[in-house]
C-alpha cells in the first residue's frame, strides 16, 4: 500500500470536508452562531436511524439523505422556535438539538437496532483512516476518470457539497454580509430574517452532514469554527476572511494529518494518532496563536479585540 492509496484519499476527504465546513463557518462565526455545527451534528441522529431502518444497511446513501433531511428539519425548527416562540438563539438551539438527539436515541431503542450500527467512536472521530482508494498506482492515475468510481464514497459527496456551497456563497455574498452585519436593516429592505435563517442553517446542515460521515462530529465542529475564527482575527475584510479561512482549513487538514499520522510515530508515539483528532487540535492551536498575535497587535496599537 502506498501514499496514493492510503494517505492521499484520506487527505482528499479531509481537505474537502475542511473546505466545506470552513466556508459555512464564516457565516456562523459572524452571526455568533458558532455552536450551530454542534447542534446540527446531534440533530442528524434521528435521520441516520431512519435511513438505516428504511434501507436496512449501515453503509448506504439513505443514511446521508436521512441525516440531511433531519438537519434541514432541525434547522427549520430552530428558526421557527426563534421567530414564533420568541426564544433567544442559544435556547432555541439547545431545545431543538436535545429533543431531536433524544428522539434519535429512542428510535434506536424501539427498533432494536441499538447494538447494530452507530458506534460512538465512529460518530466522534469519523472514519478518515478507512478512506482507501485502491485504484491509483502512479500520480497521473488520480486524473483518470476510470478510477473515480472507486473513490471512497465520502469524496464525491463532499465534492458535490463543496461545489454547491461555493456557488451559493459566491452568488449570495452581498446578502450574507448584509444579514450577518445588520439583520434588522436587511428585513427593512425586504429580506426577512426567517428566510436568511433558514438558508444559512440549510447550508450549515449540508456542510455538517457531508463532512460528518467522513471526519466525525469533533472535527466537523472544529473545522466549522477554527478556520473562520482564526481568519476573523487575522483579517479586516470579509472577502479576505473567507479566503484566509479556506487556506487555513487546507493547512489544518494537511498539517493535522501529518502531525498525527507521520510526526507522532516518528516522535515515539506507539502508533499513529487519530487523524481527525490531531486536525482538531491543530485547529485549536492555530486559533490560539492568532488570538495571541491579535492581542499583541492591539496592545501595540492600543485597541480592543474584535468582538
Amino acid at each position, binding site marked *: 500500500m502506498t501514499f496514493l492509496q492510503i494517505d492521499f484519499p484520506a487527505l482528499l476527504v479531509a481537505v474537502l470536508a475542511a473546505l466545506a465546513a470552513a466556508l459555512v463557518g464564516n457565516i456562523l462565526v459572524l452571526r455568533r452562531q458558532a455552536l450551530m455545527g454542534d447542534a446540527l451534528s446531534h440533530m442528524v441522529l434521528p435521520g441516520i436511524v431512519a435511513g438505516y431502518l428504511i434501507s436496512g444497511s449501515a453503509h448506504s446513501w439513505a443514511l446521508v439523505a436521512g441525516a440531511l433531511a433531519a438537519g434541514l428539519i432541525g434547522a427549520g425548527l430552530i428558526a421557527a422556535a426563534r421567530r414564533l416562540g420568541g426564544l433567544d438563539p442559544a435556547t432555541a438551539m439547545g431545545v431543538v438539538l436535545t429533543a431531536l438527539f433524544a428522539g434519535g436515541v429512542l428510535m434506536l431503542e424501539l427498533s432494536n437496532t441499538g447494538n447494530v450500527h452507530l458506534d460512538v467512536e465512529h460518530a466522534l472521530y469519523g472514519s478518515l483512516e478507512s478512506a482507501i482508494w485502491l485504484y491509483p498506482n502512479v500520480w497521473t492515475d488520480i486524473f483518470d476518470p476510470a478510477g473515480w468510481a472507486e473513490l471512497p464514497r465520502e469524496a464525491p459527496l463532499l465534492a458535490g457539497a463543496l461545489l454547491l456551497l461555493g456557488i451559493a456563497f459566491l452568488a449570495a455574498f*452581498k446578502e450574507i454580509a*448584509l444579514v450577518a*452585519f*445588520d439583520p434588522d436593516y436587511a*428585513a427593512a429592505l425586504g429580506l426577512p430574517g426567517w428566510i436568511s435563517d433558514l438558508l444559512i442553517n440549510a447550508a450549515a446542515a449540508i456542510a455538517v452532514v457531508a463532512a460528518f460521515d467522513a471526519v466525525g462530529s469533533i472535527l466537523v465542529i472544529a473545522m466549522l469554527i477554527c478556520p473562520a475564527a482564526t481568519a476573523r482575527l487575522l483579517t479586516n475584510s470579509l472577502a*479576505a476572511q473567507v479566503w484566509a479561512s479556506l487556506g487555513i482549513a487546507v493547512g489544518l487538514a494537511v498539517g493535522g494529518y501529518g502531525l498525527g499520522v507521520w510526526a507522532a510515530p516518528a516522535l515515539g508515539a506507539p502508533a499513529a494518532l487519530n487523524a481527525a483528532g490531531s486536525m482538531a487540535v491543530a485547529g485549536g492551536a492555530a486559533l490560539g496563536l492568532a488570538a495571541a498575535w491579535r492581542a499583541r497587535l492591539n496592545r501595540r496599537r492600543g485597541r480592543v479585540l*474584535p468582538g
Partner: protein
Amino acid sequence: MSPEIRVVSSAAAIHDPVDAESPFDVSGLTVAYNQAPALWNIDYTAPAGALVAVVGPNGAGKSTFLKGALGLVPTVAGRAAAFGAPLGTMRRRIAYVPQRESVDWAFPATALDVATMGLYRKIGWLRPVRRRHREAALAALAELGMADFADRQIGQLSGGQQQRVFLARALVQDADLYLMDEPFAGVDAATERTIVALLRRLSAQGKTAIVVHHDLSTVREYFDAALLLNVRRIAAGPVAEAMTEANLQRAYGGRLAATQLTAAIG
C-alpha cells in the same frame, strides 16, 4: 395575551381607513414582549414632508414603534401603511436607520461596504455590486463628510462617524420616507450639525422623516412635528401643540425636572 386585546385593537385597525395622502400611516399598532404591552393601540398619521420627532421616556416603545411599523418585531394588532399602501409593499421607498448599538462594529467591513448596502435592493438580490454602485455610495459618504474614511474598517471610526455611515447608507437609498432610530444618540457636536442639515435637506426635497429623539431641548429647533409616546399615544401634532407642559408631564409621568421642561417647551 387576553382575547380582549386582540378584538379591541384589530377592530380599531379595520375601521380606520388608510390615509392615501400620508407617507406614513399607522393605526392600532400594538406590540407585546412576553405578555407585557410595549406599545398599545397607536394611531399616527404623519404629514407629508414633515420632520417628526418621536419622543418619550426610556421604555416608552419609541424604537418598538418603528420596528413594529416595519415588521421587524411581531405585532399583536394594527397595520402600517406608507404612501397609501401596506408598508411591506413600499420598502423600496423607505430607508431605515437602526440604532447604532444594534450592530457589531467589529464586523469585517469598510465604511464604503456598509454605505453600499443601501443599494442592495435596487441592485437586486443575488446580483453583483458594480463600480457605479460603489461610486454612488461614495458620493453619499462624501455628502456626510465621510469621503476620507470610506476605506476604514468600521470599528476604527468614532461613534459620530459610525452614525454618519448609517445615514449615508440610508441616503443612498434615495427613499421618500426615512425612519431613524436615535440618530443623535452619543454623537459629537459636528455630527449633530451634519444630521440636522441632512434632515433639512431631505425635508426641502419633500421627503418625510420619523426620528426617535431623546433630547427634549432640541425638538423645537430640529423638528416640525412631534409624537409623544409612553406605551400609549400621549399627543401628536405640530411641535408647539404636542409638546405642552401637560402632555410632557403625562408622557414622562411627572419625572421631568423643571429645567428640562422649560427647555422642551422653549
